[in-house]
Structure formats: C-alpha cells, structure tokens
C-alpha cells in the first residue's frame, strides 16, 4: 500500500525528541526571517519589496503588532527552541515553526528557503492554533 501524505505531516507537531536540544539550538543560531508583504499593512523595518502589499483574504501581522525583524526572529527562535516544529522537514529544516505571542496569539512560519521563513498569525478558532496552544502550555 503506497504511503504519500506529506501534507498532514506538515500539520502535526513533531514528537518530543525528534530534534535534540543541541540541534534546535544550532538551527536557532542560523535561522533567518524573510517576511511576506501580503501579510502586512505596516511595512515595519523588514526592507521588503514592495514594503507592504496587504491582500484581501490573508491574515495580518499588524493584528499582533509585529513590525520589526528583531521581534519576528525572536518568535521564530522561541518556537524552535521549544520544539514547536512540524513533523515534515526539508534539508534538516522543519517546514513549519509555531510560536505564541505574549497575548496568546499563535504564529505560524513557513520555510521559504534554506533556513529562511516568513510568518503570519493564525485565527484562534483554527484547529492548528488550538493544538499549538495545548503544546505550548505543556512544554512551557
């Protein structure tokens, strides 16, 4: 029986121990945030081209008031260090990383290159948001 279901592995948080603390720390040192203008009204300090191109239908980084590279990168690193990463990985990099803001909003970041990611907030009602919240409180 063939097994070809990459998609669902992208929607599941990797089991504890998939990455060693040392591996997560190494990834955290190398990771970069790129950003995507379609999720932004405020261009922030990302240096994107175009700086912002908010699009109907997309969730917005503005709702969580993240306007700087430094803050976006901080959330990526915190997510990595806690192991909030997808089962699916490409070239050693998890395809998706999740993080949680101080006010409890769930952020999701997608890999768009070798160690580079862009992110966006999830709606609270989304199944993945509920799962990440659960993971976060267990692994705090």
């Amino acid at each position, binding site marked *: 029986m063939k097994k070809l279901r990459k*998609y669902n592995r992208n929607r599941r948080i990797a089991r504890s121990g998939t990455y060693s603390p040392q591996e997560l720390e190494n990834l955290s040192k190398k990771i970069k945030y790129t950003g995507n203008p379609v999720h932004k009204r405020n261009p922030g300090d990302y240096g994107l081209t175009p700086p912002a191109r908010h699009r109907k239908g*997309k*969730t*917005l980084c503005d709702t969580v008031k993240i306007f700087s590279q430094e803050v976006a990168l901080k959330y990526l690193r915190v997510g990595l260090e806690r192991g909030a990463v997808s089962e699916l990985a490409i070239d050693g990099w998890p395809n998706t990383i999740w993080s949680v803001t101080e006010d409890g909003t769930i952020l999701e970041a997608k890999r768009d290159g070798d160690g580079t990611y862009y992110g966006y907030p*999830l709606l609270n009602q989304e199944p993945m948001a509920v799962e990440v919240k659960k993971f976060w409180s267990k692994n705090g």
Partner: protein
Amino acid sequence: MADLRIDFEWLSCPDKDPLEEATTARLEIYIDDFCLTRNVNTFTETIENSVNVSLYPLAMWLVSSWWRLHYEILPADLRMGPGHDWRLSHEMSAANSGFVWPNLVMAPPDWEEIQIWAQPTQEQDHSVFYLNGLNDSRIVPKKNFTLAVSSFVDEVVTRLNDSGLQDTDLSQIWSLIKEEQRDSTTNLYRLLEAQLGYDPGECPDKLIGQAVTLEKKLGSSFSELSGAYAKGDED
C-alpha cells in the same frame, strides 16, 4: 437535501509561493443560494460574496482529508469536542496557509450524505471576516459533494499544469486517490481506515485487518458501529 457549489474566477496576483500565485482566485461557496463566503472586506469596509484566496491550499486540504471527509463520522463522545486530528480533516479553516477561510465543518452523518455546519468568523481584525452562519446544519447528498469537490480539484490541477507547474504534491495525491478508488480492495481499506479515524496508510495493520474481516461479516452495519470505536486524540 441541499446542493453544494464552489464557484471561482482566476485572478492574477503576485505571491511568494508560485503554487499559491498560480491558483489565486475569487472564491464563492454556496449551499443552495445561501452564500457561505459572504464577508466584510476590512480594507474597503464593503460586503462581498467572494473572497480572494489561493485555491492550492484549499485543494490540498480537500485531497489530504478526502477519505476522512467522506467516511469519518463525528466522534461518539463529544463531551470534550472533537480532537485535533478530526478537526484537521473536517474543518475548512485547517487549509490555513495564512488565509482566512470560512468557518465550515463537514462530516458524513451516514453512508449517503455529508452534513455541513457554518459559523461566522469571530475575529474581525484580519483582512476579511465571514458573516454568514447556518442556524441548522444542511445535508448534501454525498454524490453531489464528491462531484463538487472533484471538479474543483481537477480545475486547480489543470490551472497548475497550464502554468507550467506539473507534478505538484496536489497532483500526486489526487492521482493516488483516483488510483485507490479504482481498486476495490484499496478503496475498502482506505474507507475503513477513515471510519476508524486514521489518515491514509496510518492505521495499524492488525486493526485494519480486523476491520476488513468484520466488514465482510457485517456489511454496512460495520459502518454504523465503527465511529464508536474510532481512534481518539493521542495526548
């Protein structure tokens, strides 16, 4: 019985992801004449029936959830609400990818039908929020549901091919589903796996073996019982 309709019109809109860019469209979803995508565009403060989204993540969600969407009923014990795995396969918002999707839940109440629930979006600070919910769930004949979803996925795959994006994850999974449906043994295997709450290929061999044996003895009665024995969420 109601009718499900998925209408769309392709748009040209730059995106970081070529698959999402090629499949950007103005999407409208209807149950009979009731628009489930009616939304407030928070940029223009206007009300519209269509929403601009990429159809690739939606098509990926539909094919990845195909068997469970068609055959996995609501869990028998709903005191804690359905688990994460169930929600990923039955709630459209799981299509995610940074889009705001309508809050639709779809699951079969029995062998012949798909039940659809809809609720307005609670959060109103993103680019759109959806206005329409259904007071009562609607029942769509499973044949109509399958036809609407299959046509939708076929059109997304064609669009990708026409854009020079062949052999995508979507087209591979879609071809595999069609292949599995043509083979009666695999079709039964997938269907039983879904009824037991597993994604394709993830049900333990022993359990699926027992399910095949029981299905042969009990026929459709097995389907009525299987939901009660379906896998719960693992913590």
